[in-house]
């Protein structure tokens, strides 16, 4: 028996900001979930199951938020489960929910991811002092910066490419009312004059720390037929993992990322991603990850990704727009960041991305990664149901 087609019929997110002191965590997730239900014109009673995700527990100090959030998400008397894959969790959470629909376990599933970074400390969560171990000598940026340098050495990319990504994403964010950073006076010169934190990564090329939540209503073919607005259809979805560090790991272009993308393309019948996919919303917490992922995801040959960025192909009006929402560089509630990528892909093929809509976007890839580039989750959504 073939899988049930999965449709996204409702999307909701909060206005992402540095600190949401006016709401509890329950109030934050509720806001996104209610907006997704409103978009789908459904009520809590229409939801069969709830799948939620957030980044590692000690960031928030709540061991099992899924228990405390059951009533806020209308999950009483329904299955509720929680997914846990570090920074990629927002993507994996959506895929677990999608699989429940595809397997015909449930007809309509609410999926949601969140983070309230203002009430925790992600850097502390990432750098616990462990007895006998040498302390990490640099923060999160310091962990990733050497990989960026390795990319530059491998490809010969000019050192301005990172600033072009940051400048583009921050301008895209100006068109997205939900984005955290709205830097109205942004210029390329300002990006390039920003302090170098972990050379080769500048302050302006790093992501902010945000409070926010994102939710989607996923449903089956019958649910999509009842939906008031166009659905986004899932054409492929996959997850892959690998160890944080192992002999032979390619930190610039991890094998798990390549395998994950290949699986999605196979499911979706994508022969040439550069030609067959209209736009990409990918997880870029440091600007240089745009050209790195363009290669990892097969949009450019190895060593060529930066040329797409440099030539303007990834601009909002380019031939392959990347991070139309403004991306993680403009909004980063860690646990929700992956789902925001997936949701943006769905908004695009539904034609509901507002000012950051890519005209005629029919097939869009959403991408998330997490841990030390070790968890990958991706989906490809389309404006038409998948050919069965």
């Amino acid at each position: 028996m073939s899988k049930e087609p999965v449709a996204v019929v409702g999307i909701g997110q909060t206005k992402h900001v540095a600190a949401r002191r006016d709401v509890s965590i329950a109030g934050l997730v509720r806001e996104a979930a209610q907006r997704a239900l409103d978009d789908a014109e459904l009520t809590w009673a229409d939801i069969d199951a709830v799948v939620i995700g957030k980044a590692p527990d000690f960031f928030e100090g709540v061991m099992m938020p899924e228990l405390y959030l059951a009533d806020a998400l209308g999950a009483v008397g329904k299955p509720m489960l929680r997914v846990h894959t570090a920074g990629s969790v927002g993507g994996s959470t959506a895929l677990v929910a999608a699989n429940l629909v595809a397997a015909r376990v449930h007809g309509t599933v609410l999926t949601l991811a969140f983070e309230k970074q203002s009430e925790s400390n992600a850097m502390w969560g990432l750098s616990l002092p462990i007895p006998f171990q040498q302390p990490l000598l640099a923060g999160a940026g310091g962990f990733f910066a050497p990989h960026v340098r390795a990319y530059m050495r491998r490809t010969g990319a000019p050192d301005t490419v990172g600033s072009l990504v940051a400048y583009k994403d921050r301008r895209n964010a100006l068109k997205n009312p939900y984005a955290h950073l709205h830097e109205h006076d942004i210029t390329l010169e300002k990006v390039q004059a920003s302090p170098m934190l972990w050379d080769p990564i500048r302050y302006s090329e790093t992501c902010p720390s945000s409070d926010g939540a994102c939710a989607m209503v996923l449903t089956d073919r019958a649910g999509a037929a009842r939906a008031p607005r166009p659905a986004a259809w899932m054409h492929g979805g996959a997850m892959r993992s690998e160890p944080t560090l192992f002999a032979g790991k390619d930190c610039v272009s991890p094998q798990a990322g390549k395998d994950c993308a290949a699986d999605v393309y196979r499911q979706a019948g994508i022969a040439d991603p550069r030609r067959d996919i209209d736009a990409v919303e990918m997880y870029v917490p440091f600007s240089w990850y745009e050209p790195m992922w363009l290669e990892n995801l097969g949009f450019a040959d190895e060593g060529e990704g930066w040329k797409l960025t440099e030539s303007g192909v990834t601009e909002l009006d380019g031939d392959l727009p990347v991070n139309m929402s403004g991306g993680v560089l403009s909004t980063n509630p860690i646990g929700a960041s992956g789902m925001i990528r997936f949701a943006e892909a769905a908004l695009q093929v539904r034609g509901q991305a507002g000012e950051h809509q890519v005209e005629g976007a029919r097939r869009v890839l959403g991408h998330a990664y997490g841990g030390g580039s070790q968890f990958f989750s991706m989906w490809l959504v389309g404006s038409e149901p998948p050919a069965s």
Partner: protein
Amino acid sequence: MPEILKAPLVLEFPFTRSLGPVQSAFLTGLRERVVLGVKTGDGRTLVPPVEYDPVTAEEIRDLVEVASTGTVTTWAWNHEPRRGQPLDTPFAWVLVRLDGADTALLHALDAPGPDAVRTGMRVRVRWAEERAGAITDIACFEPYDGDETRQTSGRSGEFENMATGIVAPARLDYVYSPGRAQTDYIHALSEQRTVGERCPSCRKVYVPPRGACPTCGVATAEHVEVGPRGTVTTFCIVNIKAKNLDIEVPYVYAHIALDGADLALHGRIGGIPYDQVRMGLRVEAVWSEGGRYPDHYRPTGEPDADYDAYKELL
């Protein structure tokens, strides 16, 4: 075989919490010696209150005062109070259904011993002397023989200076052991030797060793001394001071592949201006008196390694 290392590990962090409208009213109420519940769609009163109806999932905001007297619905005796608990002498954990409420609140009951506690017994709130808008504004419950229910003042959740947040300290306290492989590695470091382990299957040498190969999934045991020299495979220049690290910025944080190792470890580069560090630089460890790890790595003066020699080790 040396004894496996162990050390206490305490993780603690003062998380903050924004309360939202319902918890804000509840905790501000406690500060004013008022206990508030919330009315659900089916007419029940939940104490402590919640923001969303557990039956209908609707937002609920109808706050009502309940009494500070109530009935124990179940309990468990706590023989040995731990740090941070409401009382420092043995007490009972109790669920108390306050008069006017339909659900029970978890708290402590001050009682001389387990024989003095029973389900169904009457209790009342003992308010803390100093109250700040937190659950600890209820110091504990105490047995109460009075038969009248205290009149409530009819408060509904409107107060001056509403509490908007709390601090919730989290603390994990346990014994950490790095295990056999890391213990061997650390003992060798104390002799200023770097000893990894070779995977019997893929033959890769892991430094630091983990006791198992993450790729092949088999145990590793064969010790292999690597270094003392190595190659900087990639690096970054750190320009911002990290917390808990007493290193002057800027400094170079590098991935270093010691000769004979199949993946790079991390270290600081010294003995050379930071802006002259490059990929392929040949380095060796510099030890400080009593240091468990090399203090930093410095150039050996050898010619730089060829990119092809280390490009798989980035």
